[in-house]
């Protein structure tokens, strides 16, 4: 486990080193070079807390309420302990969380999908180019770790740990509250309806499902007292012109763009995600499939923006690859996938440093 953690951490450090080296040629300064887009929002929360009024963006209506509090809270804690600013503290925290995900997944899945498949899963998560977001001040790494802990603990009937991770998940990102869906599926595979109603042992998953949204609700309560709107995290999406739309309509709009456009890439990411969801269901990973489907559907219904990041930073798409049947689970095939992922590092590093908008 320690070896896996260290190997995954090494991958993150290598990625961070690449970012730093490539960024050294830019004149934006080190901190600005590795702190782009959402990083600036998290940084604002760490440094100044949540906005009382909006006032950013071209329309003056953007505010940092859209960003859930757990990650910036932890970054503030780390930066108060270590002699580093929020950007470096956030990068360190992200790298640690991302590296910790690999052993959590291996330990959690080795008995379920076999040690070889679990090892491939951990390796894919460690080397995916989407690990870029686990190298900077972004919430993805923490969310991915908590999701892995919540689902693997629930699969292993350790419902108290699962419940604790779920509460934290809800305080990390809005989609965290939908952990109730995989929890319900896992619980119903462990206990029958009759047991849920009569067996004291079945109370644990019921309580875990019940407490899962707590983190999000506490943030809503805070927002109500801070800005007067408990749903300010959703309301503020208007400032980015994100509304509610039919996911199918959004998807078809994306495919209407040129092949090399960011919109086409985001739409293709969503389609790939749906395909991988299908694989999860086909391979009887219903809880994970449901979790992944919801995590695709929700952002897709608000627009195409950032879909690549939303869909490929958690472990769920890599689980779909890990449970593929023969001959798609051969060593050569898997080595090829991992090599492709490593090659992807180049595009993500360059995209980040050159501020290509598809990376957002």
């Amino acid at each position, binding site marked *: 486990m320690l070896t896996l953690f260290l190997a995954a951490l090494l991958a993150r450090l290598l990625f961070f080193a690449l970012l730093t080296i490539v960024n050294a040629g830019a004149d934006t300064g080190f901190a600005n070079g590795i702190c782009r887009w959402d990083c600036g929002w998290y940084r604002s929360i760490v440094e100044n807390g949540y906005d009382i009024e909006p*006032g950013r963006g071209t329309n003056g209506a953007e505010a940092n309420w859209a960003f859930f509090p757990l990650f910036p809270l932890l970054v503030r804690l780390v930066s108060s302990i270590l002699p580093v600013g929020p950007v470096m503290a956030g990068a360190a925290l992200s790298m640690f969380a991302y590296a910790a995900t690999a052993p959590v997944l291996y330990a959690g899945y080795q008995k379920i999908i076999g040690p070889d498949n679990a090892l491939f899963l951990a390796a894919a998560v460690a080397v995916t180019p989407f690990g870029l977001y686990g190298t900077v001040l972004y919430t993805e790494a923490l969310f991915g770790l908590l999701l892995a802990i919540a689902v693997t603990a629930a699969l292993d009937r350790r419902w108290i740990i699962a419940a604790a991770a779920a509460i934290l998940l809800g305080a990390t990102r809005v989609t965290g509250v939908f952990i109730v869906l995989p929890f319900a599926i896992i619980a119903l595979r462990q206990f029958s309806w009759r047991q849920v109603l009569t067996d004291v042992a079945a*109370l644990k998953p019921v309580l875990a499902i019940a407490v899962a949204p707590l983190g999000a*609700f506490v943030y809503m309560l805070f927002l*109500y007292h801070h800005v007067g*709107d408990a*749903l300010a995290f959703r*309301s503020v999406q208007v*400032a980015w012109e994100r509304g509610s739309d039919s996911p199918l309509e959004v998807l078809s709009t994306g495919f209407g763009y040129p092949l090399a456009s960011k919109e086409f890439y985001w739409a293709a990411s969503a389609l790939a995600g749906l395909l991988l969801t299908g694989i999860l269901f086909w391979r009887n990973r219903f809880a994970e499939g449901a979790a992944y489907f919801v995590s695709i559907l929700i952002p897709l219904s608000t627009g195409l923006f950032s879909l690549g990041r939303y869909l490929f930073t958690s472990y769920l798409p890599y689980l779909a690859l890990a449970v593929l049947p023969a001959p798609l689970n051969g060593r050569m095939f898997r080595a090829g996938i991992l090599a492709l992922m490593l090659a992807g590092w180049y595009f993500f590093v360059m995209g980040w440093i050159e501020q290509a908008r598809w990376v957002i």
Partner: protein
Amino acid sequence: MKRPSLLVSPLMIRVWAGLFLALLAAFYLYVLNLAANPQVGAAYRLFYFEQALSDWPGDTLSALPTTPLELRTDADPRIGAGFEAGGREEGLWTIANDAYLILPAPAPQDSDSYWLEVEVSRVFISAVHDTQPVTLFVNGHRLADWRLLTAEGVTLTVVIPARVIGEDGLAVIHLDLPNAHSPAQAGLGADGRPLALFIRSARLLARQPA
């Protein structure tokens, strides 16, 4: 044999769990109730909830002028979302299916009714849509429906009951324009903006206009 404590017997565990779940449900309902009843100012409501503004108004809503609104530039804070950007001499086109104006109620504010006049100097009609239906809402209340049949200018007049004006003294005029369409759609040029009405001015009066 030691008997289990009554507090941790299976029955009591269920009772404790039930109490905990009830407490949790009460908390969720409390927060959901707060979410359903936000306590926000006019700027927040108009921008985020009603999407009647294209830019954050800041403090400008509390000091809007009651003088007639001449739509010569989009810089006037009384011109909301759904209007073209940039200045013109004679008015502005609506460029969406929904267009908004925010007009403060003039003094005296204790009158029973207000009168709204919207001066439309052109109506975009083409072979695609040969009429322009217009529905007018004030602060969410549907007050008038028109069907404009020609491209010629027209003055739309409506009586607004005082009860429709809220405590903030603002009248949010919402024009619902389902037949807005672009000149490009109609084969009349390259302009892809969905046009409906070219509005010259708007005014909210405390007394019936002469």
